[in-house]
């Protein structure tokens, strides 16, 4: 066990962590707005990867260039989700909200299985290929760029939410939707925007991961689990918390896999989740 191997694991963990952070940020934004956990988040990630894949396989568009289209498609998907499902369950009990988005996740996944079969696919020869050597550490180029793009998108999201007028309106709606409505902020429109942005984040992550990850119908489950954990770790509704939580999870996953046993990655993350949530129930940066 040399220090290079450990360093390699840290780099890998950091890169995965940034992707988890962006996926979790979308989830957290949606939760902060309307206190609904999108249990179909993993399936939305799967959809964005497939959108990237089909744009490549049908039109020959490299995943790198199709990202704007994927983002738009996912944002549209978010608005549709809000319009056809979420707006009916805004006032429902928590159980019903969980069941509804859970139902959506089963629905999307099994439709995808019916249409595209559960085969594994991957994008052949994307523009981003190969790896960089830094001393004795190897960094895959697609992974590196994916994590950098996710980091940039994350910073963009953070600036958008904290600095722009729409972002502030989103925050106002998250704090008190009735008071915000009195001030002339239509909460329904804000919810739709929240869903569009939340799934747009997933679109960025999915589009970049399509470069190097296998694309199949169950791909989202693990990512969604880690995203749930990241959101709970960072504190529900806190966007900056997602960044730290995502990185923690990425590091725990890769270091735990290296030092103990790679087949129990999920368990290490689970233990971290339990420890944090039990000692700090509102998460690291949560307001709930």
């Amino acid at each position: 066990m040399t220090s290079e191997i450990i360093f390699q694991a840290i780099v890998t963990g950091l890169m995965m962590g940034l992707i988890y952070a962006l996926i979790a940020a979308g989830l957290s934004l949606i939760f902060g707005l309307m206190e609904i956990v999108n249990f179909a988040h993993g399936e939305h990630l799967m959809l964005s990867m497939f959108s990237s894949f089909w744009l490549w396989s049908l039109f020959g568009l490299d995943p790198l260039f199709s990202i704007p289209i994927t983002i738009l498609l996912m944002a549209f998907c978010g608005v549709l989700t809000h319009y056809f499902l979420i707006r009916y369950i805004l006032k429902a009990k928590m159980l019903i909200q969980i069941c509804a988005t859970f139902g959506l996740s089963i629905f999307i996944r099994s439709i995808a299985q019916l249409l595209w079969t559960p085969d594994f696919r991957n994008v052949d020869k994307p523009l981003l290929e190969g790896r960089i050597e830094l001393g004795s550490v190897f960094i895959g180029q697609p992974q590196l760029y994916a994590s950098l793009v996710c980091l940039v998108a994350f910073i963009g999201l953070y600036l958008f939410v904290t600095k722009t007028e729409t972002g502030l309106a989103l925050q106002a709606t998250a704090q008190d939707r009735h008071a915000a409505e009195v001030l002339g902020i239509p909460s329904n429109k804000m919810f739709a925007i929240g869903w569009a942005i939340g799934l747009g984040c997933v679109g960025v992550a999915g589009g970049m991961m399509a470069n190097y990850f296998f694309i199949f119908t169950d791909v989202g489950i693990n990512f969604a689990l880690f995203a749930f954990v990241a959101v709970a770790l960072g504190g529900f509704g806190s966007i900056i918390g997602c960044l730290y939580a995502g990185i923690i999870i990425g590091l725990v996953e890769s270091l735990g896999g290296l030092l103990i046993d790679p087949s129990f990655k999920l368990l290490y993350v689970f233990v971290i989740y339990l420890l944090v949530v039990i000692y700090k129930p509102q998460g690291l940066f949560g307001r709930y």
Partner: protein
Amino acid sequence: MDKLIVAKSEPLWNTNNKVISIIGGLVVLLFALPLVGLNSFYLHLFIMIFMHAVMAQSWNVIAGFSGQISLGHGAFFGIGAYATSFFYMEYGITPWISIFFGMFISGVFAVLIGIPMLRLSGHYFAIATLLIGISFQVVFQRWDLVGAASGLWVTMTPEDSWTALQFHSSKLPYYYIFLVFFLISFFAVWVLSRSKLGYRLRAVRDDPQAALSLCINVSNYKIIAYVISAMIMAPMGSLFAQYILIIDPDRVFNIEISIIVLLITVLGGIGNVWGPIIGAAILIPISEYSRIYLGGTGGAVDLILYGLILMIICVFRPNGLISFIPKDILERKKQR
């Protein structure tokens, strides 16, 4: 301090006479049904309905009565399944005894899981249980003692045997075994829902703060509900293992089990003793028939239906199908 709480329990039998006679009639009908000569497909259908009704009933105890949403309830099903098969194959213990081992182990796990996790509220608990369900699957896939990923193949007896709980020539004995377990667990949950314990659980669900101020130890009652729920779930896993005789982690710890119990309960009506039964009686035939007629087209058509039904129910009938039935038929007649 418990004496301070005077929750007036409803008398167990003071129900509408009509309802009693309808239930009695249905029970007799269910016992007599195989005499008509059901073929093995229909026997299988009824067995599945009974099994899923009990599984959903178990989920109903934790989610419907005490309001904690567990998304990993399949774990207890799997524990039950592995307990009987493992003890039978390693030590030759008859499944009739190891069913209780399974219940006991599930109960212990429910306590161990419940103590740290039931302090979590709402979404935190739901996500934690989702992880629990998958962790069990991961661990059993790697655990060599119980056959790792290939699972356990229960040694077959040459002939039908009541001691080994294996019947190869007919599904009829399974039908009666599942029916009896179905009736027992239904009765147990019915008693529970009308007992002081049931009222306290609902108080915990509806307003934990108010319950706490009435000296109800909220977290203890949640754990009690979780243990009861786990102990109802485990025997179904045991019986299912005896029914199919091959178990592997992907089958008995599948997340689909956790999904379907939720779906059945929400479809029928959550928090109501009748909900899971109605849900199972409607959903299981739909799923079995859709598997027969549409399954060949290469996909999870029944899962598409599940998802769709779940969303539709959540949007239009959050109280489940039971809300179509007028309340005064199901509940005790108001005395003037």
